[in-house]
């Protein structure tokens, strides 16, 4: 079972979207999450959600805006991506 850990981080997006989390899977950085700010995203109804700002390897998302209502939901998604896309060892 892969161990997912979240580490708070500030992201310099030059906007109000600064609250972030580094997501590690067994100690390796696999994604950067950002919390969507009220200032920029309330009009879309997305404020407060967590969005995959960057993903690596199994968590790469391309131009998709992958969003979650909670950090727990994001954590589950990462675990799922890692377990389904990890190369066989």
């Amino acid at each position, binding site marked *: 079972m892969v161990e997912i850990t979240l580490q708070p981080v500030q992201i310099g997006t030059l*906007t109000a979207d600064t609250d972030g989390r580094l997501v590690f899977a067994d100690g390796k950085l696999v994604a950067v999450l950002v919390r969507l700010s009220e200032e*920029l995203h309330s009009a*879309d109804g*997305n404020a407060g959600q967590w969005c995959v700002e960057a993903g690596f390897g199994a968590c790469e998302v*391309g*131009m*998709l805006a992958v969003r979650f209502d909670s950090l727990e939901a994001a954590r589950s998604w990462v675990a799922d991506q890692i377990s389904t896309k990890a190369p066989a060892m």
Partner: protein
Amino acid sequence: MVEDPFLQKLLRAGPLSDEEQAALQSLTFNRRPVSARCDITNGALINGGVTDRVYLVMSGFACRYKTLPNGNRRIVSFALPGDLCYMHDAGPFGRDLRVGALAACSVADLSRSRLTELIGLHPGISRAIWWVTLRELSRAREWIVNDTRPADRRLAHLLCELLICLQVIGQADDDGFEFPVTQADVADTLGISHVHINRVLQSLRTGGLITWSHHQVTIPDVEELKAFAEFDPAYLCFDGFEPLGAIAAPVAVRAGP
């Protein structure tokens, strides 16, 4: 001043005789409204349907797009008033690309076989349609290159292009234009996420480069935006073809030693 956006645009390729202009205007029939968020085809086109129709956007704002199996849509070009759609897509190779109205449009149908006939009969029309083709290719190349720019410059470049293209058909002011699309449409055009577009827009706004509200884009300093976007309008080919005299005569190449 020619009112028809189709003719306004084609005249950029070079002169068209009165007879040629009349022939082009006689091509359109069945002018019909298309609601926003609907495809402009009239049903027969998709899924391999053979069609003799070419579509001409007369007013509104449309786009050519493709949707991936995961639901992602990529807009690959806009179709503005005076633009033909599906002109070269009689074969199966164009069937995956769709054309949809982003805002309400008025669309006229043309007969492909009649258009082909006119191209054969009139050198001016032949040159104009050839120009349309080359122009589309030129713009597609520029969009590919534009994808390598950071998202804020990419958006600035797109807005510069729209400003020039809409000015040509008299649908933009010196410093702005009506832009009746959503932020999600722009994100799908630039190839960035629907979240990222919010930040990109804010960056251009706070930089004082643009405002965009109530479907109106205003550019306080057009030259500044063009410089920021690295925008050179030459790729839009609005100066027509080079005069024949400008094409260098072939130079005899001497065989090497």
